């Protein structure tokens, strides 16, 4: 193998694939990044067997070849090189990669590239696509509700249902639920439903930051995998097996109080209250006060921490229905309010112990259900 490329491009490609390198693994080959020529481009690949990433960068290929180089060594070394042309030359017999850039030179002992796990490429069937910035937004709004502990593996995933011209993404960690619907670029040939690890989607959102073309999603038959195809990156993820809970059952169909607030004001008020709440199991109490002769409608937020003290704040609101006091985990409120871009949100509530629903005002494609914290005595 004899290849040259720009340090900028190589460093950027490495930063994308290195996210799939496991922090520790019993298989030494998983600690490497595959560097291989692929036609006129250089392909970089890494996998932890749950997700795998292929990334292609522009290069000048003189001789074809491939080698697997320890990830830390390659990434750290390339990142510290000056922005110049890098020349790479492989000694096939010893799997040693010789690297030359400006006045720096290095030899890296690699491993046999044929030991590197194959990361599949997308196929033509079962394929749908979405606008990259819509998909990024969807991921941001949904993965906040996915579970991070592994006690129920399906809850660490995002349930995706593709039907007709749209896809519905949902995640729930047992205490909150995010559901977002988004249009597909074309109508799906057949309905599909599957569970993607939230970690894989977060990674995808990160990679897709400067993607302009739509992102293609492809579910190859019988492989229990999903492939995301971007302009110069493919991301493959194992799907999570199992049944996702029937979340439609959980979404309350009615409410007795609907409270509309300014999203940014509410977020700021919750963050302020959280300074106290974080010392006391994240409990923030909301007192929803309908308009009266004495005062216009508003919501009072307060938190009390035994060791610290207490605080109270207020935001303007429009309240339909009766007043109510309800307590939520401040973390959950901050998470959801941070991913709503609409100016106003509506909070729909019924009793202090029944689920609250948060929806952006003027948009029907997102909703978030939060279970309250209930006073036990």
């Amino acid at each position, binding site marked *: 193998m004899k290849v040259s490329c720009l340090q900028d491009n190589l460093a950027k490609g490495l930063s994308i694939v290195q996210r799939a390198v496991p922090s520790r693994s019993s298989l030494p080959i998983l600690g490497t990044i595959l560097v291989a020529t692929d036609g006129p481009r250089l392909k970089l690949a890494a996998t932890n067997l749950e997700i795998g990433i292929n990334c292609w960068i522009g290069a000048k290929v003189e001789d074809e070849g491939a080698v697997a180089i320890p990830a830390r060594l390659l990434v750290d070394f390339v990142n510290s090189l000056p922005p110049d042309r890098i020349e790479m030359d492989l000694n096939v017999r010893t799997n040693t990669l010789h690297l030359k850039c400006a006045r720096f030179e290095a030899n890296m002992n690699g491993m046999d590239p044929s030991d590197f796990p194959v990361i599949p490429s997308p196929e033509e069937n079962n394929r749908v696509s979405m606008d990259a910035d819509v998909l990024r937004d969807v991921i941001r709004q949904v993965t906040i509700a996915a*579970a*991070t*502990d592994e*006690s129920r593996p399906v809850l660490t995933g995002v349930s995706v249902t593709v039907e007709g011209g749209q896809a519905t993404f949902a995640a*729930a*960690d*047992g*205490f*909150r*639920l995010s559901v977002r619907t988004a249009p597909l670029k074309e109508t799906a040939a057949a309905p599909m439903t599957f569970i993607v690890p939230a970690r894989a989607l977060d990674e995808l959102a990160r990679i897709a930051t400067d993607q302009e073309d739509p992102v293609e999603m492809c579910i190859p038959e019988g492989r229990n995998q999903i492939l995301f195809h971007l302009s110069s990156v493919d991301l493959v993820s194992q799907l999570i097996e199992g049944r996702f*809970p029937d979340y439609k059952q*959980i979404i309350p169909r009615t409410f007795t109080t609907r409270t509309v607030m300014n999203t940014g004001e509410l977020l700021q008020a919750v963050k302020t209250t959280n300074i106290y709440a974080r010392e006391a*199991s994240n*409990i923030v109490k909301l007192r929803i006060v309908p308009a009266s002769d004495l005062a216009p409608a508003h919501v009072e937020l307060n938190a009390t921490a*035994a060791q610290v003290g207490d605080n109270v704040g207020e935001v303007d609101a429009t309240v339909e229905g009766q007043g109510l006091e309800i*307590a939520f*985990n401040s973390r959950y409120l901050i998470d959801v309010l941070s991913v709503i871009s609409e100016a106003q949100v509506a909070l729909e509530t019924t009793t202090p*112990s029944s*689920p609250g629903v948060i929806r952006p005002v003027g948009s029907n494609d997102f909703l978030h*259900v939060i*279970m*309250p*914290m*209930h*006073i*036990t*005595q």
Partner: protein
Amino acid sequence: MANQTRKPENGSEPAHKRLRWILHIDLDAFFASVEELLNPDLRGKPVIVGASPAHRGVVASASYAAREYGVRSAMPTARALKLCPHAILVPPRHHVYGEFSDRVMVILRDFSPVLEQVSIDEALLDLTGCERLWGPIPDAARRIQQRVMDEVGLSASVGLASNKLVAKIASDLRKPRGFVYVEHGREAEFLAPLPVERLWGVGKVTAAALHRLGVETIGDLATLPESALVEAFGPHGAALKYRALGQDDSPVITEWQAKSVSNEETFATDQTDEEFLRHELLRLSDKVAARLRANGQAGRTVRLKIRYHDFTTVLRSETLPMPTDSARDIYETALALWRKHWQKGRAVRLVGVGVANLESAPYRQLGLFDDTHPREDKLARTLDEIRDKFGRDAIRRASLLRPDEDSD
């Protein structure tokens, strides 16, 4: 210095090192004494509480009359009956002992709220600062012992000292009906003649190593230089020396400030029956959950303890996303741990369930998938109230009833 009630001189102590009064009380031959109390025919006779030798039972408790024949707790019942063939064997009735134990604890709480129940028949009471209320503390300690005898009918041994370590050793010194008071400042002197095995943290291995160093008594240990102990035992070495000098500033931990709540059960016979063991986990989870609720606490880490017949002990834990005080959450987590870590078929001597990572929990996070939680919560609290009023066994899960058990 034992059996004296002279007031200590405490004038020269610095204010931050306030003198403490710690009482350790240990009920004498507890299970056997309760059986004697309930059945006067047994009085004074050699009584062994334990499962029958047919079930490979061990002695849970033996009356002093039986002990004269060399019968000891944890000894196989078969061997105990060989030592003392005319002993009367009584099957254990733990719920009965629990009620007697509770009555003793109520008396102790009358004297001080700072109570740490160590086990069913043992407790530590911090009486520091109670002089105004009860007069000289050694006198109050004697009254406590007397009230346990008068009101419950049980004899107890009492140790009174400036810390937990010394109080515990003191109560053990003159059983039964012992009363040993170690004056402040004379702890080291009190411990010095005792064999080193009496000290906390000195098990078989440490004792053997100490013997090799020429240490037989606690006094011998106290004179060893700290550096020699650190060399022989690592960082624990220094702690050993302080203990040998009778120094211990660990506080009496009342339940509401406990860092964890746990319950465990040692079986009269080693168990391999999975169904039975699962029931035990449920029963223990129920107990732990009730104690958490009584303390107004909830915890995030569920712990499981398995001790096999050969005393190898496995401790495993799992941390939940939200603190809980629900028996169901605790049981489900403990059961998952159990399934993962129990070596199927290996005989189990003890199981324990505990919850750590506690916080006081006026609010609980409701779950998305089970609308049963608030109702279950209410049910659990109602059950707690019933048990409070009518006793621990007034109401139980049907699955915890055993076919061979009398519903007395």
